[in-house]
Structures are given as structure tokens and as C-alpha cells.
């Protein structure tokens, strides 16, 4: 029952799956941070159209199952509408997975960040305006830097959830860890190695997520703004 043989026999394949997971998570982390910041800026902007766009976007993406978002990207946009990033199918599915996961995670980044913006005292924005900074300048130089520092820890949780959410990309034809695992389990000869495989993959994810959590915790302490 606890035969680790098959697990190590296919170790290369599993490692490849994890590498695909890391590439997806890293790209989604960067993209969702940028997109989330833009959305949060929209949601506090003095222009109504931008605020409405931000609100609608967040409420749609945050309340749609990720599987649906990713299937929409891969099957809907890539396959049916033929909006392809590349003619190589692995490349185009990768980028659709990145885009879908980023778009979805950005809604959560945006909401964390907006909570952070609410922790910045109103006087900071008033002082920024009083020395002649425009809205965009005061957001970029005064409000957002302080908002980010306030929400480093919650952002860590968002990113841990995002790393685990990469497993859903298997549904969107992207060959990451979960898909490798499912392929291995489908082999009739593999039944004896099922439990060790689960354990191995779980440990693999912890190797990715635990340091992420520690890193964000450390960063939070280091960056905290004294008032």
C-alpha cells in the first residue's frame, strides 16, 4: 500500500509537472499583482466609469469558479474563438492558463489592496494634494506604498491560494503537477503507488507554499509603517 517505488520511478515526470506549476504560479503572481493594483486604483478613482468597471470586474471574477474561468479561456477563447498566443498548443495553453489565473487572482489582490487603502488615514491624501500632487501622483507615491505595506500578510494568503489554484489549470489543458498526477493514476499498474503519490505531491506543494507564507510574514514585519 505504501509502495514508494512507482513514485520514484516517475520522479522525473513529477518534477517536470512541478516545474510547470512554478512557471505558471510565478507568471500569475507578477501579472495578478499588476492587474490587481490597476483594478484597486480604478476602484478608488474619482472617475465614475473606472470605479464601475473595477467593481463589475471584481464581482464577476471573484464570484465565478476558477475552473469555469480557465475552461472559458482554453476551450472558449482559444479553441472556439481561435484567439491563440502561438501555434504551438503547449505555449498557447500556458499563456491562457496564466491569463485566466491572473485575471481571477487579480480580483482578490484588488480587494486586499483596497482594504489596505482604507487603512491609510485620509490626512495622508489631503497632505499629498496640498503640496500639489495630482490624484495619480498621490496614489502612486503616498497611498499605494502605504496600502501595500499594510496588506503584505493578507497578500501572502492570496498567493498561497493562487499557488494551489494552479492545479485547476489541468482542466484547461495545461500540463502541470495535477495533470501529471492524474495521468499516472490512470495507469492500471499504478494503483499500489497511489497513496505515496498523493503524499509526495502534497509535500511538493508545501515546499512551494510554506516558504511563500514565511516570506510574506517576514516582509510584513519588515515593511510595517509606524504611525
Amino acid at each position: 500500500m505504501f509502495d514508494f517505488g512507482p513514485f520514484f520511478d516517475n520522479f522525473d515526470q513529477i518534477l517536470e509537472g512541478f516545474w510547470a506549476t512554478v512557471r505558471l504560479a510565478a507568471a500569475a503572481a507578477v501579472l495578478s499583482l499588476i492587474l490587481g493594483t490597476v483594478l484597486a486604483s480604478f476602484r478608488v478613482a474619482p472617475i465614475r466609469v473606472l470605479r464601475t468597471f473595477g467593481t463589475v470586474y471584481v464581482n464577476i471574477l471573484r464570484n465565478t469558479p476558477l475552473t469555469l474561468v480557465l475552461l472559458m479561456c482554453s476551450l472558449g477563447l482559444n479553441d472556439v474563438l481561435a484567439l491563440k498566443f502561438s501555434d504551438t498548443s503547449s505555449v498557447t495553453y500556458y499563456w491562457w492558463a496564466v491569463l485566466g489565473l491572473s485575471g481571477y487572482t487579480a480580483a482578490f489582490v484588488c480587494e486586499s489592496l483596497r482594504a489596505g487603502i482604507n487603512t491609510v488615514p485620509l490626512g495622508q491624501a489631503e497632505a499629498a494634494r496640498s503640496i500639489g500632487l495630482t490624484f495619480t501622483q498621490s496614489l502612486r507615491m503616498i497611498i499605494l506604498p502605504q496600502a501595500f505595506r499594510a496588506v503584505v500578510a493578507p497578500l501572502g494568503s492570496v498567493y498561497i491560494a493562487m499557488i494551489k489554484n494552479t492545479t485547476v489549470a489541468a482542466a484547461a489543458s495545461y500540463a502541470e503537477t495535477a495533470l501529471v498526477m492524474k495521468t499516472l493514476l490512470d495507469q492500471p499498474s499504478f494503483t499500489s503507488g497511489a497513496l505515496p503519490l498523493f503524499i509526495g505531491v502534497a509535500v511538493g506543494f508545501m515546499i512551494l507554499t510554506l516558504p511563500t507564507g514565511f516570506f510574506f510574514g517576514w516582509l510584513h514585519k519588515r515593511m510595517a509603517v509606524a504611525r
Partner: protein
Amino acid sequence: MTDSEGGPELTKGDGPDDAIPGAGPLVVVEHVDKHFGELHVLKDINLTVNRGEVVVVIGPSGGGKSTLCRSINRLEPIDGGTILVDGKELPKEGKDLARLRADVGMVFQSFNLFAHKTILENVTLGPIKVRKQGRQESEKHAMELLDRVGIANQAQKYPAQLSGGQQQRAAIARSLAMKPKVMLFDEPTSALDPEMVNEVLDVMTGLARDGMTMIVVTHEMGFARRAAQKVVFMADGQIVEENTPDEFFTNARTDRAKDFLSKILTH
């Protein structure tokens, strides 16, 4: 603080696009009305502030003093009337308004120093990002200003590491760094421990002597007597009395002012 020789130039202000730089009153408030919902907080306010004049606004809480002060750089929008700064009406929004605000210094009750920036960065941010000055020039000027307000040795610290009095002096330096035409003070000493009030008032008195145009909302009667040319008494959203400090404190014309003074001066 009386000796301004060799100190940084504080009263410079005329930008290149001024219609008639240096002519006429600096701030003109005409028939200004302002509501907060049902509450009529500014009722037909008229006020003229000349160049180099120090005007102290005094009166009971909720009388509209702070609102008037904040409306002069449009931190509070007004419902009616006009406000002219150096002959130009306040722009409604956008870049023009930002440009005007750069010329109008503001000091807040709660200091509002940028919490994530050092004192020096607080003072240089405006000159670098708004005035587009070089970093070196801005830092040199900032250090002169910090020296002038007596906290040059705190330049590398963060606001939370300073006392209230030091923070407020840093905030004054931050405003001065923009070389404003006029400075607004919104109860600058009300949040301070008593022993720190004077260090801030000394800086303000020095500014007044150097000819800075100032509008000061305060309860500090000593400062009003010492530094102001004009006292404006506000109550219930109206300017009840405009007078010289000496006349106002010894021989107020209106009953409302006499009543207010009797309540605060007997203690």
C-alpha cells in the same frame, strides 16, 4: 527667528503665468456658501487677505473656521461664491488645481507627514515631483528649512520617531519647501502637548515677521496678539467680527465675540 538674513527665501511666489504678479490682495473670498447636507457651515463669507498680512481666525468649535481654511485650497469644495488666490479663481479639478495648491501651503492639526518617508523625503517630495527641481538642490533647500525650524538633526528619521512638536515643525518645512504664496494653518497646535506648543508658535511668529502671508485658525490668543494684523471672529458659519488684535481682545465690538472671549479668558 527674527533674523532672516542668509536664511532660505520664503516669500517668493510669483509664477510665470500670473496676470499681475505682486499686485492686489493675495486671497479674496467673496460670498462663499457651503453646506454639509442640511448644515449651512459657511454663510456668505467675505474676506480679503493682503500680501504679507497675517490673519487669525478665531471662534467656537463648529463655527466654520476649519472649513473656511480648507476651502481656500479646495480641500473642501464650495457651493457658491468665488475664491481668488493671487487674482485667479480656484480651478475646479485636475492639473490646474494641483498647480494652485502647490502655491498654497497647508499645515494640518494632525501634521499628516507621509508616514513611510523620512523627514527629508517628506520635505523634498513636492519640490522634486511637483516643481521638478533637481534632487541635490531640493535636499540643500530642505536642510536649510529643517535647520530653520530647528530639526535638521532629525532629517533621516521617520515621522513616528519624532515628537508632536517636531513633526509639526517638519510639516511647516514641507509646506515652505514649495515656496508658497500663502500659508494656511488649520489649528496647528491643537493636537500638541502643552510644552510643545511654543516651539511651533515660535516658528510661525518668525514666518510672520519675515513677511509670509498667513491665514491661521487657532485658539492661541498670545500668537494672535503677537503676530496677527487682523483677527476674524467666526461663529455659526458667519464672520461676526473683523478687527485688529488689540481692539478685538480689549474692546470687541460684537456681543457674540465678547461672550466668547469672556468664556475663554477667565480661565
